[in-house]
C-alpha cells in the first residue's frame, strides 16, 4: 500500500512536470497547440472520473457522457446569457420562447454556474445510483441502465429546443470573465488553468483510492456480498463514488465547453460515452493517473492520425481497442506494473530480506 502510494506520487509528479512544463516548452508556447492540449486535459478529467467508479468500485458507467454534458451545458448557459446581454439568447427567439425560462435565470451568476456544473451532475448521478444500488443491481445491468439513461437524457436535451438549442446546442458564447480576467482560450494562462484543474482532480482521486474508503470500494469490486457481511453498507459506498465520479465529469464538461466555445448534444451521445470508456481502458482503469494518461494518448493519436487517415482512423481505433481489451485487459498501466514486478522478482530475495515482506506478495488486481 505505502510503496504503491509512493509510486503513484512519483508518477503524478512526473506527469505534472510533463503536462505543466514539458508540453508548453515542447510546443514553444504555441497558442493553438496549447488549446488542443487543454481539450485533451479536460477529457483526461472525465476519463479519470470514470476510473474512480469503474476501476475502483467495478461500476461500469456507460452514461458518463450525460453528466459530462450537464457540466458543459451549465457553463455554456452562463456564457450564452453573457453573450446575449439583456436580451434573450438568440435560439429562444427562433423557438418562440418569449421570456427567459426560470431554469436559466440563476445562470447569470458565475458562482451558481460553478456549483451547478459540479452539483447537478453529482445529484443526478446520485439519484440513479441510489435507484440502482438499493436494488442491488450490479455488473452488466449497471452498464445497461446507465446507457438507457444516457439515451433518454440526450433525447430530452435535443427535444427541448427552446431551453437547450436542440440539435445545434449552445453556440456563440461570450468569453468567461473570471475575477475581472477575461479568459482567452488560446492563452498560456488558460492552459495552466485546465492543467491545474486536472492536477487537483488527480490528487483528489489518488487520495480517495489510497484512503480506507478506496480500500472498501475495491473490496466491493471483488466481492460485494462478503463486504456486506463485514457490516459495510455497500449501496452507500457505491452511491458516494458514483456521485463523486459524476461531479468530476461535470467539471470536465465545464472545461470542455470553455475550450470548444460551444456545448452540443453530441457530448451526450452513446459513442462519446463509450469513447470515454475506451480512454479509461487503454490507460488502465485501476489507476486514475493511468486513465488520465490514456485519455491524453488516445486523443493525441486521434488528433495526429485522423489527419493522415481521415476515414480509416475510426477503424484503427476500433482495432486498437479490441486488441487492448483482449491482450491488455488492465491497459498500459497493467503492462507497466507487470513489467516492474518481473524486474523486481529478479532481486526479490534482497527486497524480502530487507523489508520482511513475503515473496511475490500478491497485490490486488
Amino acid at each position, binding site marked *: 500500500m505505502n510503496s504503491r502510494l509512493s509510486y503513484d506520487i512519483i508518477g503524478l509528479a512526473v506527469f505534472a512536470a510533463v503536462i505543466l512544463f514539458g508540453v508548453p516548452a515542447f510546443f514553444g508556447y504555441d497558442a493553438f497547440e496549447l488549446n488542443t492540449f487543454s481539450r485533451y486535459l479536460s477529457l483526461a478529467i472525465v476519463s479519470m472520473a470514470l476510473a474512480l467508479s469503474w476501476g475502483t468500485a467495478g461500476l461500469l458507467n456507460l452514461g458518463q457522457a450525460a453528466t459530462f454534458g450537464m457540466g458543459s451545458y451549465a457553463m455554456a448557459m452562463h456564457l450564452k446569457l453573457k453573450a446575449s446581454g439583456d436580451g434573450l439568447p438568440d435560439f429562444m427567439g427562433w423557438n418562440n420562447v418569449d421570456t427567459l425560462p426560470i431554469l436559466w435565470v440563476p445562470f447569470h451568476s458565475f458562482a451558481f454556474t460553478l456549483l451547478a456544473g459540479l452539483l447537478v451532475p453529482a445529484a443526478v448521478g446520485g439519484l440513479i445510483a441510489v435507484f440502482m444500488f438499493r436494488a442491488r443491481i450490479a455488473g452488466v445491468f449497471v452498464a445497461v441502465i446507465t446507457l*438507457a439513461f444516457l439515451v*433518454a437524457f440526450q433525447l430530452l436535451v435535443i427535444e427541448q429546443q427552446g431551453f437547450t438549442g436542440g440539435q445545434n446546442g449552445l453556440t456563440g458564447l461570450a468569453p468567461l470573465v473570471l475575477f475581472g480576467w477575461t479568459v482567452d482560450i488560446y492563452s498560456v494562462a488558460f492552459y495552466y488553468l485546465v492543467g491545474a484543474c486536472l492536477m487537483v482532480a488527480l490528487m483528489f482521486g489518488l487520495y480517495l483510492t489510497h484512503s480506507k474508503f478506496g480500500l472498501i470500494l475495491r473490496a466491493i469490486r471483488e466481492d460485494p456480498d462478503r463486504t456486506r457481511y463485514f457490516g459495510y453498507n455497500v449501496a452507500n459506498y457505491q452511491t458516494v463514488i458514483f456521485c463523486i465520479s459524476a461531479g468530476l465529469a461535470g467539471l470536465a464538461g465545464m472545461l470542455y465547453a470553455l475550450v470548444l466555445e460551444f456545448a452540443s448534444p453530441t457530448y451526450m451521445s452513446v459513442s462519446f460515452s463509450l469513447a470515454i*470508456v475506451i480512454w479509461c481502458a487503454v490507460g488502465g482503469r485501476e489507476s486514475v493517473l493511468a486513465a488520465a494518461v490514456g485519455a491524453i494518448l488516445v486523443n493525441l493519436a486521434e488528433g495526429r492520425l485522423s489527419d493522415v487517415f481521415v*476515414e480509416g482512423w475510426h*477503424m484503427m481505433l476500433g482495432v486498437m481497442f479490441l486488441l487492448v*481489451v*483482449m491482450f491488455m485487459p488492465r491497459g498500459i498501466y497493467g503492462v507497466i506494473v507487470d513489467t516492474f514486478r518481473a524486474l523486481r522478482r529478479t532481486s526479490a530475495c534482497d527486497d524480502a530480506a530487507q523489508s520482511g515482506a513475503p515473496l511475490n506478495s500478491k497485490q490486488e488486481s
Partner: protein
Amino acid sequence: MDVVFNQAFAGLSIASILLIIALGLAIIYGTMGVINLAHGEFVMLGAYATWALQTHLGLGVITALPLVFLAVAAAGWVIEKVIVQRLYTRPLDTILATWGIGIILQQAIRLGVGAESKFVRGPQWLSGNVEIGALVMSNYRLFVIAFSLFIVAVTWLLMTRTEFGMKLRAVIQNRGISECYGIEAKKVYSVTFAYGAGLAGIAGALITPLFSTIPTMGTGLVVDAFLVVIVGGLGSLVGTAAAAMLIGEVTALFSIVINDTLGRIAVLAGIIILIRFRPRGLFPSDTRR
C-alpha cells in the same frame, strides 16, 4: 380511435422486428453471459446484405432472407471463434470487445459501401393494404408480424425439440458437468452465437423497406433490444416476447398522447423505474447460472 388502432398496429410491426433482434441477444446472453454490443451491427450487416443481394443479384427481400441469415450467421461464427471465445471468463470485458467489433464493422461498411443511406424496395406482392373499417394495415407489416411469430416458434422448437437444444440447455444449466457428459460446450457456444447473429441479420433484412439503411442504424436498435431483454427477464423466451410487445406498443401509444421523442423518453424512464422494482425482469427464469 382510428389513430389509436393504426398506431397500435404500427407499434406491433416494430415490436415484431424488435422481438427478433432481442431474441438473438437474449439467447446469446442467456447461454454465454455475453453482452453483445455488436448485435446492432449484425442487424446493419443484414440490412446491407439485403441491399447488396437486391442491387447486384436482383433478389427480393423475402427470397434474400435465408441467404442473409447464413451470411450474418457466418460472420457471427467467425467473430465468436476469433474474439468472443477468449473472453468468456471476463463478462464485463465482452461489452467492450463487442463494442470494438461494432466500431470495426460500422467503419468497414462506411469505407466499403459508403456512408449515404441505401434504399431497398419492399416485395411487390406485399405492396397493398388490408383495410378493416378505418384500420389500414400494410401487407408487408402483416408479413413481418407473422414472420416474427414463425421465428419465435422455430427458436422454441430448436431449444426444446432438438438434440442441439438439449445440449444447449444442458450447457446453460451447468457447463462443467455437461462437458463431462461429452457435450462440446465450445461448439454449442459458437453455434448459438452464430444463430443469434443470424436472427439479427434477418431483422436487418426485414427492416430495410421500413427504415433507411445507414452504417449507424444498429446503435439505436441495440439499446432498445437490450431493454427488451432486461425488462423481459434474462433467458426467458416468453418474457422477451412480452417485453418486446409491451415496449413497442407503449412507445407507439405514447407517441400519440405526447410526441415521438417524449414518448420514447417516457418509456426509457419507465423501464429504469421498472428495473428498480423488478431487477430480474418481468418473467425471471429459474435457470441457475
